[in-house]
């Protein structure tokens, strides 16, 4: 019986990839486990294995094809004597996404390095990039369309070219080219002295980085995800954040801790936490959480040049989203300045990082219903640009905050508290928070969806504060 071989997914968030190479040709005999093809995404490569014995009856997608959707039939394996063509006309068995979880490492780190990042709704609704360029970038600036992943890499590379004291360290940042490919190419350009693969030892290398910063170097410490920074949080807070104060200003700690923060997709509670409030709570730190490629680049460059410890919270789902970024190596975005991502007059929506995707999507839907929302992208969580928020609330008289984090003691809670204290008389409705649910992240697809905010919930919250619907 003929079996369709389907384009596999490297992770739940992968939508499409490139069929890089056929290892087998039509007519070749294959056995279960034989590698028949190689596929590629912008993040990783993997081998496609046969799960049935037989012969490659037909190759449906030629080598070199880009943008092959997951689950598209790419070949047909037929039993001896069977014709390839017939199988397309009947419901043959399908060879589902059967591939090594992490072909590049041979497994083992699959849970840490869940792969690829593009999600349909995130990509299609990633309007943030469009207004970004218009609002802040001087007229006439040449723009290039790059992903946030490339923007982050370019920011590090440019700063490393500019200052020999800048180096990057972390798990898999060098030879593997980054668990999420953020450090791709850096080893080649800068060598092992400045692109340092560490053992899996977060407390140790975070502390080592802080010590190097005390000595005047400018480390960029990559956490594979911020979930693992929990092992190192003592050094981020007790050693990095407090020492400038405790030394009466003598010791500087110019270090950047960066990596993906928040929920990826289907990786369970220990790999899906959003830490904004944890770090935003701490005096002595600066905390940044960009939502666009341009902000990611400009803010990471500013963070690397900053003399203070900076926690730079990225988001896996946003890595693959492209946006216009000013060309050249002098694009800096000031730390501590929020941005009006969409001007409006009826209600203020405040968010950051991936929450901006929901916020802007909601604003679009609301526009169709006659509600003109002003959307503020905080970009920096500490110091918090509360003045921009307050000015907006004084105009719209309503506010909804949007975040993926847990609701208790969240950044949204802080914004609401400050708005109530400082703009109480301007409010026409109770400030409202849209957040993740107050539960550890569930694994099941339906439950995970329920645990996270979405644009519909933002729309609902906005209508409530506008007393509509």
């Amino acid at each position: 019986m003929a079996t369709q071989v389907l384009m596999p997914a490297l992770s739940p968030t992968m939508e499409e990839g490139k069929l890089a190479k056929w290892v087998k040709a039509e007519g070749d005999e294959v056995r279960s486990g034989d590698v028949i093809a190689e596929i590629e995404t912008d993040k990783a490569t993997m081998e496609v294995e046969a799960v049935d014995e037989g012969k490659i009856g037909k190759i449906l997608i030629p080598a070199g094809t880009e943008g092959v959707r997951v689950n598209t039939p790419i070949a047909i394996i037929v039993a001896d004597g069977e014709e390839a063509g017939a199988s397309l006309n009947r419901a043959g068995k399908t060879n589902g996404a059967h591939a090594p979880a992490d072909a590049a490492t041979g497994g083992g780190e699959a849970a840490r390095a869940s792969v690829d990042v593009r999600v349909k709704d995130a990509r299609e609704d990633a309007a943030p990039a469009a207004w970004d360029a218009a609002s802040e970038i001087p007229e006439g600036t040449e723009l290039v369309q790059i992903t946030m992943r490339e923007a982050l890499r370019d920011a590090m590379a440019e700063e490393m070219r500019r200052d020999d004291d800048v180096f990057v360290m972390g798990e898999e940042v060098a030879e593997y080219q980054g668990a999420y490919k953020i450090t791709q190419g850096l080893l080649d350009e800068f060598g092992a002295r400045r692109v340092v693969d560490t053992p899996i030892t977060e407390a140790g290398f975070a502390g080592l980085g802080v010590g190097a910063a005390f000595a005047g170097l400018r480390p960029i410490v990559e956490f594979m995800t911020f979930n693992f920074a929990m092992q190192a949080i003592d050094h981020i807070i007790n050693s990095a954040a407090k020492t400038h104060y405790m030394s009466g200003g003598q010791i500087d700690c110019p270090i950047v801790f960066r990596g993906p923060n928040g929920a990826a997709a289907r990786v369970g509670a220990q790999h899906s936490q959003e830490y904004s409030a944890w770090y935003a709570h701490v005096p002595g730190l600066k905390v940044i959480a960009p939502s666009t490629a341009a902000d990611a680049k400009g803010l990471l460059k500013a963070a690397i040049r900053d003399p203070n410890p900076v926690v730079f919270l990225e988001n896996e789902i946003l890595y693959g989203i492209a946006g216009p970024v000013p060309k050249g190596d002098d694009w800096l975005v000031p730390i501590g300045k929020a941005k009006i991502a969409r001007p409006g007059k009826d209600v203020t929506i405040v968010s950051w990082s991936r929450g901006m995707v929901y916020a802007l999507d909601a604003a679009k839907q609301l526009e169709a219903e006659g509600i003109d929302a002003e959307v503020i992208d905080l970009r920096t969580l500490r110091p918090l640009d509360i003045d921009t928020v307050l000015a907006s609330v004084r105009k719209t008289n309503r506010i909804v905050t949007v975040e993926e984090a847990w609701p208790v003691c969240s950044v949204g809670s802080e914004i609401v508290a400050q708005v109530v204290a400082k703009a109480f008389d301007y409010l026409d409705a109770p400030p409202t928070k849209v957040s993740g649910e107050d539960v550890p992240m569930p694994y099941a697809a339906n439950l995970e969806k329920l645990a996270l905010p979405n644009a519909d919930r933002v729309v609902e919250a906005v209508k409530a504060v506008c007393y509509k619907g």
Partner: protein
Amino acid sequence: MLDDLRNGTSPKGHPPELSRDEELHAYREMLLIRRFEEKAGQLYGMGQIGGFCHLYIGQEAVVVGMQMTVREGDQVITAYRDHGHMLVCGMDPKGVMAELTGRRGGYSRGKGGSMHMFSVEKNFYGGHGIVGAQVPLGTGLAFANKYRGNGNVSLTYYGDGAANQGQVYEAFNMAELWKLPVVYVVENNKYGMGTSINRASALTNLSQRGASFNIPGRQVDGMDVRAVKEAGEEAVAWARSGKGPYILEMLTYRYRGHSMSDPAKYRSKEEVDKMRHEHDPIEMVRQRLIASRRATEDDLKAVDKEIRAIVNEAADFAQTDPEPDVTELYTNVVR
């Protein structure tokens, strides 16, 4: 315990003699720490010093001997029993004492306290309050030395209590993996707060704790400044030559409690007295100086007098210097 200490002396037998100048230097430095700490204890009793105050009395030979092995540019970092380390690094006793009393003339402008002082000028990187955290930090100082190729060595001190922290071994691993110029000096004073090393450590020979990383280690009589200096020279030369880290376990003893309010129920008075009377680091140098006629009682009295004057001046300053201006509350949070 004295046998333990003697077993820990140089494998070559008696450590090499010090020159007259070295003996006198060691005597003076150790006495400065002793008198400084006694005064700090007094000021604590008077309510002038708040919070925690961990005295170094009894352990003086460790930092004094080690500091005799380093050169300009080498860094020192330790935990919270740090006053002695600062004094041997050449930090001003007035600035240290004024920090203990929380005054504006303190090294951290009164905002750090006993456990949190620094001097970039003197290459002293703290002063850290979290047990064991200074070990990765000191390894990072060594990383910076190697990155810059400046030939400097990081002396990273920790105690027998910290020796059981996981991050110490994370640092060991990277230090040996990358051949970082760091000397780990574990000051084994037998007690992590009130818990004796025998009740806390499965392997009490802390010099061997680097074995699984292939880091060499030596046990040293940390009460004998000669033994400390001799071992320190070997370890520092090892690290400076690019061979990577080295562990020195200094067998030492603190006479005072862990901090100021210490019930002292975990060890006998006899144990403390025996160490004090038979193996005191300062008394040993003093006796050698007199016996060898390198110094007279009068010479040493003159040193005592000079030290007392320095310490009294520090104490006076620390009590008369004003508290920080209230505007200091919000300075130095970020730069």
